[in-house]
């Protein structure tokens, strides 16, 4: 993957920019305040110096010892921190200077040293210290220079001095101008900036590494696991689950992924099983058909012989055996057809607790022999259900025998628990009857979805007309469209028999706002659904109001050897057996067929060495009332 598209890169980028901004703003103000402090300090220092020079030259000034003054100024100017010291007269002529070559030069009043006072062409006589300082670049442009001008005011001793150099009228006699190099200060500010920069760089690198580390740990690795898992699932490995899940959102995602995979696996198993049972059913039907024809011959011809040999009891006896055994074969073939789910189970109201007890009594000896304790946790209020008592007993018998085999010779326990549970009606209720407003049946048994007759509509999309077969399971959407429909154009749905429109004009689909179809379910209210098929919205008030569908659940748990994972997917397959010569391998597949036939479901949880739990869910109530 491109590194610039990774979450860690993006996070590091965003955090770095933020850190740069914060450190930048902080550094700016920090350096600025430091510079201000430094500058103020230098200013104060320069001013002091200026005052000192002024005071120390005062006396010699009064004596008018010019050489002496120049000598003092030259000496002071030798200090490396001091760039220059000059004294100018009122006209701007440099009288004294640390740089002797400047003496005698005239300064323009607009020159920067004069500017503060002479800005308005007329000199201002009093200035604050701030206004008397100025900063400018050195001639060589290498460093900055701070200049302080200090006006020398006229005073009595000046104009009364013997030299009579000054008259008493002038207020300001001249200006002492000291310039101090800021090279040192600038260097310190520069150093500070470099330090801040290094600090910023170290912070960003540090933060980058920390974020990178934790993103790798908390995001990258789990995401890689998830990607690996989705790849596995895409490749068809539905047994794959993500391990080492964390407690954060990605952990939740992982758990939900595992859950999805498990559900997918279960559905897949059921589907696989259904398909196989269907093909096995076809096989059984084919076998039944093929065997029944020759049996017809055997049965009629032997019956004939019976009629023709009434005077020969010996032959009669033998023939009776043939007839009897042929009749038995007929029953076996019929059983095969039963197994192939072609015959309806003989349903009646049964008490499952009682059936379990009956099955237990059949294998009482086996339980005793294997020293198994048989524990029954019955829900005494368990309602009766409509089911084939014999078939259901066969289911329990098979499961109990399997459990005893799993527990082995060394004893263990089998726990049977019955309870009542509720499951949502959507996706579980089959629509078995539907009519238009003129009571024409809309059910089409020729066209099936999931093995169940569908609901047939006439559909018109644009100029094309055809049929649509609705998925008969409420809430499911495996509809089959006879024509290609344009989901954006207006579709008209009508009864295939009378052509009456099935669109309910007073209603709008709450999900897409499109039209709604409405069909009547005799004695069960009406079903509405999105008629544009943009979404799978369906509403069946009566069933929704009835709430969740009630099931009874029977769990058979043993603490036996468990089922190894590699066998788990095969246990419901016909002819799969681990019992060698002992079993036919039909047991669990027959159980599956029976439970499926009762609109129920069977699932298994197992752990090698710890035991197995088979859970069976059967719908409650009269199946006739289940629409």
């Amino acid at each position, binding site marked *: 993957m491109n590194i610039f598209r990774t979450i860690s890169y993006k996070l590091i980028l965003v955090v770095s920019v933020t850190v740069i901004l914060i450190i930048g703003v902080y550094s700016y103000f920090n350096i600025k305040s430091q510079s201000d402090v430094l500058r103020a300090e230098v200013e104060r220092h320069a001013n002091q110096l200026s005052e000192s020079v002024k005071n120390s030259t005062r006396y010699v000034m009064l004596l008018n010892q010019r050489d002496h003054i120049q000598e003092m100024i030259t000496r002071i100017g030798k200090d490396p921190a001091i760039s220059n010291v000059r004294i100018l007269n009122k006209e701007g002529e440099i009288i004294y200077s640390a740089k002797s070559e400047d003496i005698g030069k005239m300064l323009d009043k607009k020159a920067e040293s004069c500017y503060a006072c002479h800005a308005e062409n007329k000199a201002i006589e009093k200035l604050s210290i701030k206004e008397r300082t100025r900063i400018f670049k050195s001639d060589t442009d290498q460093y900055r220079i701070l200049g302080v001008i200090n006006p020398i005011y006229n005073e009595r001793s000046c104009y009364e001095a013997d030299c009579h150099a000054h008259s008493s009228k002038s207020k300001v006699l001249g200006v002492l101008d000291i310039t101090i190099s800021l090279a040192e200060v600038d260097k310190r500010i520069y150093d500070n900036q470099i330090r801040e920069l290094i600090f910023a760089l170290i912070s960003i690198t540090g933060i980058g590494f920390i974020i990178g580390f934790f993103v790798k740990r908390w995001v990258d690795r789990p995401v890689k696991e998830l990607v690996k898992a989705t790849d596995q699932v895409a490749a068809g490995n539905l047994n794959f689950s993500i391990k080492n899940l964390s407690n954060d959102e990605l952990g939740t995602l992982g758990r939900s992924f595992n859950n999805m995979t498990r559900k997918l696996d279960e559905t897949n198993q059921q589907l696989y099983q259904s398909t196989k049972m269907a093909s096995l059913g076809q096989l059984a039907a084919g076998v039944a058909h093929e065997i029944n024809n020759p*049996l017809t011959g055997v049965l009629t011809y032997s019956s004939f012989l019976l009629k023709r040999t009434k005077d020969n009891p010996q032959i009669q006896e033998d023939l009776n055996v043939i007839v009897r055994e042929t009749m038995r074969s007929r029953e076996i073939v019929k059983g095969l057809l039963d197994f192939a789910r072609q*015959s*309806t189970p003989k349903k009646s109201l049964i008490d499952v607790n009682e059936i379990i007890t009956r099955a237990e009594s059949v294998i009482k000896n086996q339980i005793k022999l294997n020293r198994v304790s048989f524990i029954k946790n019955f829900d005494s209020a368990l309602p009766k259900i409509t089911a084939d008592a014999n078939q259901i007993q066969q289911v329990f018998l098979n499961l109990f025998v399997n459990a005893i085999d799993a527990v082995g010779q060394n004893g263990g326990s089998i726990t049977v628990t019955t309870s009542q549970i509720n499951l949502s009606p959507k996706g579980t209720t089959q629509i078995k009857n539907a009519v238009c407003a003129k009571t024409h049946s809309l059910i089409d048994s020729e066209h099936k979805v999931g093995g169940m007759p569908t609901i047939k509509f006439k559909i018109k999309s644009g100029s094309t007309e055809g049929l649509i077969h609705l998925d008969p399971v409420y809430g499911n959407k495996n509809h089959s469209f006879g024509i290609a429909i344009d989901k954006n154009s207006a579709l008209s749905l009508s009864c295939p028999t009378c052509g009456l429109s099935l669109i309910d004009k007073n209603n709008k689909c709450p999900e897409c706002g499109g039209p709604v179809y409405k069909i009547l379910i005799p004695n069960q209210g009406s079903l509405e659904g999105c008629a544009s098929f943009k979404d799978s919205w369906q509403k069946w008030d009566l069933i929704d109001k009835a709430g969740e569908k009630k099931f009874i659940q029977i769990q058979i748990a043993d603490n036996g050897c468990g089922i190894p994972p590699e066998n788990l997917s095969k246990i419901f397959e016909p002819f799969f057996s681990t019992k060698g010569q002992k079993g036919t391998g039909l047991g669990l597949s027959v159980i599956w067929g029976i439970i499926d036939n009762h609109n129920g479901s069977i699932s298994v949880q197992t752990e090698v060495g710890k035991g197995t739990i088979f859970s069976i869910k059967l719908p409650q109530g009269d199946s006739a009332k289940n629409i």
Partner: protein
Amino acid sequence: MMKEHFNILIIDDEQVVIDSISKIVLMENYTFVSVLDAREALIKLEQYDFDLIICDIMLPEMDGFQFLSKVESKRIDTPVIMTTGFSTIENAVKALYSGAIEFVPKPFTVDELTSVIHRGIKYNSLLRKKKLNDDSVLIVPCPSKYFRLGYSAWMNSDFDGSVLIGATDFFMKTLEQLKKIELLPLNEILTQASPAVKFETEDGLIHQLYSVISGTIIDRNIRITDEPELLEKDPYFEGWIYRIIPSEPAYEMKLLIPCSSDRN
């Protein structure tokens, strides 16, 4: 020109089945023609006259159901008995719904097929007489709110959700001299299109009446076992047979023929 007449047309794609049926037919002294597929059967129907057709469901090219609808569309009213090795309840119900008068699952015993053939022949002769407006034949149709399975058994939903079932007048008239009626015990669970009542006739044959609908028997009309003539006198009211609690009426009633359709 009168077509040549045979009693029975046998259609089956397996010779051994044709041989078996023809042996039974010959034993009863009926004449027959046999063919191996439905197309040939249609040709024979053009050439000859028959009293009864015995037809397999699983046939090459045109199956038994297609043959039935073809016969109907050609307005041939010869009664058809369906038989199949794929003997499921669905096939039985569908055959009776599609117009067959009887359904016999394979393999059948000699007696089982014989009784059905007897009824079929009788059915045909009643039909002919009726067509000729013979006053000696009066077949009372079942009341219009009743439903029937094939021509032989009826059901009527009661207001309390239970269902009465019985035999039609037509079925009773196809039986020769009823001797004994054998009912199933109470609480027995009936399955649609499986045997529910045994009628024994004087000739020793056992005739099975199929249950119209699945359900549990909650009451039986014991009177008919003592006076079977009740069934013949008033088959739709006094001559009811079982009262049952239907288990899947909504689904199963769709495969029944409303008796109201008989009155036009």
